[in-house]
């Protein structure tokens, strides 16, 4: 089984005056695990339905490998799909469900039986052949759905929030299993989720969607460390946002003031502006909680008062109120020698200049 490349070329789809998908272009490499991530209503399902062939795009084209499938009927696309609610056929046994795509392809009885057994072994459900879907737990139904989508060896697999209905523990286990399957089969996966943690865990690359548009596409690390917009910065991981004003700049840095007295220095290359912020322009700053360092208070440029301390095992989160009233989340590892202020204490904050993202204020 080998994955095929998938190329979405300027895809567009409108429902009435809603642009459900707005000129989205994504090239997925063979064998890649690509997630579509975005809030509910951002057009992920619509995009997936166009790839599966259940919605016709208004504009653009879809290619799988070297084949244009934009207008091909869904049953001739050879693309596997796992539906959000699994869509197992309730009147067929597990074995009949998995054999269904093979019967449609007129496989011989012997080949079908062998392939069904292999697919069930793949998802570790050997021995469940004769059960009806209603006699399986949610996690088992999920596995059957995966087996059914893989049994005809499609080069591409689509999954629409496949783990949404499972509880947290099972979900995490299935994430690992799906990833393992995808890697061992080398299949291309287009995976839809609104859960950023899930996307970060599983994906080779993530495409962030917003209001039908592609907001940013990149590896999990790229999105986490270099979000292109404040929407992406907000959506992925935890993020502190601060309003500020540009004081001035030199060859390497900006200086930005927060409130009346505090200032932050930011590396120039971290500004997401196409045009760099001008002196006097209002900007939006974003800093990850784990990038901020707390130090004992002694006349730092940025200081605040610890409002509360949240213990989360391996790390601690401090809520620090700045002089201007902004609340910052600061996360630090719990080690024996680390500085650990207590509630009510005045602390200094230091933010490395290469850890601050600057966005124009108008955006958002």
């Amino acid at each position: 089984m080998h994955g095929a490349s998938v190329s979405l070329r300027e895809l567009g789809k409108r429902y009435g005056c809603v642009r459900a998908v707005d000129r989205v272009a994504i090239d997925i490499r063979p064998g890649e695990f690509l997630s579509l991530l975005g809030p509910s209503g951002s057009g992920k399902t619509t995009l997936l339905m166009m790839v599966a062939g259940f919605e016709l795009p208004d504009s653009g084209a879809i290619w799988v490998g070297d084949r244009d499938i934009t207008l091909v009927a869904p049953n001739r696309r050879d693309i596997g799909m796992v539906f959000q609610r699994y869509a197992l056929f309730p009147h067929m046994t597990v074995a009949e469900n998995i054999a269904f795509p093979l019967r449609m392809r007129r496989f011989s009885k012997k080949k079908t039986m062998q392939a069904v057994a292999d697919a069930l072994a793949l998802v570790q459900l050997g021995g469940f052949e004769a059960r009806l879907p209603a006699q399986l737990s949610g996690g088992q139904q999920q596995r059957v759905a995966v087996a059914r989508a893989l049994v005809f060896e499609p080069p591409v697999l689509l999954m629409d929030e496949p783990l949404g209905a499972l509880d947290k523990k099972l979900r995490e286990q299935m994430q690992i299993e799906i990833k393992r399957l995808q890697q061992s089969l080398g299949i291309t996966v287009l995976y839809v989720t609104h859960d950023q943690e899930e996307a970060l865990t599983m994906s080779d690359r993530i495409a962030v969607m917003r209001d039908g548009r592609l907001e940013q596409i990149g590896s999990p690390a790229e999105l986490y460390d270099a979000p292109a917009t404040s929407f992406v910065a907000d959506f992925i991981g935890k993020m502190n946002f601060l309003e500020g004003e540009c004081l001035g700049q030199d060859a390497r840095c900006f200086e930005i003031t927060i409130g009346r007295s505090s200032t932050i220095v930011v590396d120039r290359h971290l500004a997401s502006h196409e045009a760099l912020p001008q002196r006097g322009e209002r900007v939006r700053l974003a800093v990850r909680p784990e990038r901020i360092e707390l130090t004992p208070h002694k006349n730092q440029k940025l200081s605040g008062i610890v409002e509360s301390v949240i213990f989360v095992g391996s790390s601690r989160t401090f809520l620090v109120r700045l002089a201007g009233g902004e609340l910052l989340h600061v996360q630090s590892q719990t080690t024996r020698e680390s500085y650990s202020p207590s509630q009510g204490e005045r602390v200094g904050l230091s933010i490395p200049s290469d850890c601050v993202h600057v966005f124009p204020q108008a955006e958002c």
Partner: protein
Amino acid sequence: MPESSLAQPRIHGSPSSAGRYGTMTSLVLVSPLILLLGIAFAYPVGRLLWNSVFAPEPTLAHYTRIVAEPLYLVVLWRTFQIAFIVTVLAFLFGYPVAYAMARIPGRRAMLIAACVLVPLWTSILVRTYAWIVLLQRNGIVNTVLQETGLTETPLQLLYTQGAVILAMTHVLLPFMVLPIYSTLRNIPDDLAKAARNLGAGAPQAFIRITLPLSLPGAAAGTLITFILALGFYITPALVGGPRTLMMSTLIAQQTTELLDWPFAGALSAVLLTSTLLLAALYRRALSFSKGFSNG
């Protein structure tokens, strides 16, 4: 396997009802209905059937009369024949309507639903008279046929078996459409999509997924229609005339014109027994087919 709890298996037909109410409460709750049924249905029907064997003294004469006189058997046979044809036609016309109602989104589905329901709320008498208006000698159909030159003289449309079948199919259509619609609406859209995705063409997806899953509704619809058609009175009496007598008309004649109650009882007993027999056979045949779960 990490999964601890298995979902309760759904067994065909009978839900093992560990009822929420105790036996006493249940009895109290259904007692008004039982009382009503006892007084208004069980007693008179029992009386009628009793009389067919014990009036004036214990005798099987009324039953031998049915067997001896070919007319009665002919009518009985015709009744089943018409009921069968009406059921088949109502299914053929009703299924697509139910399917459209369940699958077409928004307003147009409401429009179809209205077309199905409004006749149901109209008196059967009115709907039957409408057919008389259409089919009579100088009715709309004959007028159109003659004016377009297709026929020279008016056709005999009314008081034929065709007219009875047509009108009964029309009157009984909602009883076919509604149960089928309700099962179709409960079949998730995703199932047919999944079938398409797995390589089934649209007809295959329908035949292998949607149709078998809608069988419970189709079974209910056909059974209701068939049983209603067997005992149908007003429409056959008005549209059918003497040459297409059905059992109900015959029974009515005995009770209202000839006042031969014991014989009417015997006719009713024959109709009732054969109806129950057929219904039982039908259920048996269906329970063999797969996908007959109450979904």
